[in-house]
């Protein structure tokens, strides 16, 4: 176990706590950049999806994990991002315009949704965002002059200047660069006053307000930032698939994103990425394990969603801190080797905390 001596308040919010952390991350990034030389196209394509969904789940993590605002409507921001980028690029705008515009438009809509959210909390907000996502889905179906409705839209692979992202590998790098950018942005937001205000709101709205945090401003901002990232992910997703229709953006996508951040561990950027990797790779693991399953289960189409639902339940019941929480426990176990106590991570349960009377 290492002990830190801090001489400066700034050291509390440094991006990398130890010098070695920086080098480990650098090694990780180099390793990830080298992966396409080792892995085949299929694996790379799966990794690309992990990167794309991670961008969205980092966005949701900022809103749900750090600001404490539950959204069941992130599929809508994802859809807005996809369609903005799709419409702009088919109208002739370059991808470099379509991508940021996807984020910006999603952020604008996020602000609009954030406004009623100021009066709502917890489950009401979840239900409101869910209703909003149904409305967006219907608008995409009905506004067929712009979106071609249920027929869907075909997209060209994106190009930036002379580079055309056609191959799996080139797209992998595109998604990866954006993911790194998003993670760095999120980390930096979190250590800025904005991010600390967001965390304060999550922990106690009343206390945050007393300390001078403007709830309206920061909640709206959290919605906007979260929607911006999700919109970016939507744009990348659309260009990756090169075909989109409203059916790809149902409530199940929102649930999937929520599942990612819960399985990964709420309140950590690591968790968002871990959870995304887990959820995206789950179907692959099922396919791989098919040969060992009994006949009765093997050919069931419902197997994947069933396992998926079961995973959400099991994680929340047995490991509420998610994969990242488990990772931290293991790390702590080795750091403090013979002294590890299970109770260190025990959370205090709150009984009888009723908010309505």
């Amino acid at each position: 176990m290492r002990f830190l001596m801090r001489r400066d308040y700034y050291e509390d919010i440094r991006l990398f706590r130890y010098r070695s952390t920086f080098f480990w991350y650098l090694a990780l990034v180099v390793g990830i950049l080298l992966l396409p030389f080792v892995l085949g196209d299929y694996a790379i394509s799966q990794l690309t999806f992990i990167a794309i969904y991670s961008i969205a789940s980092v966005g949701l993590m900022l809103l749900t994990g750090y600001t404490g605002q539950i959204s069941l409507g992130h599929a809508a921001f994802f859809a807005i991002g996809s369609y903005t980028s799709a419409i702009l690029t088919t109208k002739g705008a370059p991808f470099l315009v379509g991508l940021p515009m996807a984020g910006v438009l999603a952020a604008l809509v996020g602000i609009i949704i954030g406004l009623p959210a100021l009066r709502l909390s917890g489950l009401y907000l979840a239900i409101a965002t869910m209703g909003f996502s149904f409305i967006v889905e219907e608008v995409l179906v009905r506004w067929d002059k712009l979106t071609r409705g249920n027929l869907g839209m075909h997209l060209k692979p994106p190009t930036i200047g002379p580079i055309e992202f056609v191959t799996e590998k080139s797209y992998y790098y595109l998604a990866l660069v954006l993911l790194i950018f998003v993670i760095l942005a999120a980390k930096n937001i979190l250590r800025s006053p904005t991010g600390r205000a967001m965390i304060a709101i999550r922990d106690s709205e009343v206390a945050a307000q007393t300390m001078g945090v403007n709830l309206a401003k920061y909640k709206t901002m959290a919605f906007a930032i979260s929607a911006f990232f999700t919109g970016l992910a939507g744009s990348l997703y659309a260009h990756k698939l090169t075909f989109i229709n409203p059916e790809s953006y149902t409530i199940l996508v929102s649930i999937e994103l929520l599942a990612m951040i819960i399985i990964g561990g709420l309140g950590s950027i690591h968790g968002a990425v871990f959870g995304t990797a887990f959820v995206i790779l789950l179907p692959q693991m099922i396919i791989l394990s098919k040969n060992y399953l009994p006949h009765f289960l093997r050919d069931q189409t419902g197997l994947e969603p069933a396992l998926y639902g079961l995973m959400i339940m099991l994680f929340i019941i047995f490991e509420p801190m998610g994969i990242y929480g488990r990772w931290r426990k293991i790390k702590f176990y080795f750091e403090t080797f013979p002294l590890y106590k299970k109770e260190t991570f025990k959370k205090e349960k709150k009984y009888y905390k009723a908010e309505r009377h």
Partner: protein
Amino acid sequence: MAQVLSDLLQYVLSGIATGCIYGLVALGFVLIYKATEVVNFAQGELMTLGAFMAFTFIGILKLPYWAGFLFTVLFMGIFGSLLERVVLRPLVGEPVFAIVMVTIGFGIFARSAVSMIPGWGTETYGFRTPFTEKFLKHGGLIISWEHMAIIILTAALVVLFYCFFKYTRIGVAMQAASENQLAAVYMGVNVKKVFSLTWAISSAVGAFAGILLAPITFVHMNMGFIGLKAFPAAVLGGFGSVPGAIVGGLIIGVTESLAGVYLPIGWKDVAAYIILILVLMVRPEGIFGIQEKKKV
């Protein structure tokens, strides 16, 4: 003119029938929310399970309709209390959001599990009811008995609930527990039992809705998605109010039915959610709700 009026009445009646179903599902949400502060996102799936059980009893085992009805409701009641015991009891004291996510997870699991059970699967089924293909004619108005049965049975259930909460010991205990759990414990209410019973009743109400809905939409694994339409109903009525759930359901049902006829295509599906968002913006506590004050 008379034609227009009778058309209108026709649409309103069919809206009321659908609204009753929304109301019943919303009632399931409200009962659980009142008692445990948890919103059960799997309420629609409990309804699906109920409908499939009814299909098993009536369609496969060829029991008489009312016997099948009774068995289904009883079975789902027991199922609900088991669900509470196994899945939700360990989570008491965790953040509400986590518990809600568990119900979402259970919903996904239940929907897929239904498709895996031999004899159920992904097909669409129906079963004969005493109301099948019977109609009530009055002037230009034609009402199917299936719709009438929904309206009458829902009304009967609401009266039953009213008496249950007002006059029975356990009903009053449930109200006490939902009002203030700690005080209820001090007064000798067994809160664990109350929670268990709440889930049992909600699940039974879900089954009740499922059986009534079965002749109209038929029995299939995705019928639980109607539960998503019941959220606006519950919010509109004020999430903690039992009569509010039914009234909210009726308003949503009728609006939807009328929007389907008089507004351009597409409005029918979003009408409920537009109402939802408007209500949340203007009066988040709903029609019958009480304004909440946040306490530190």
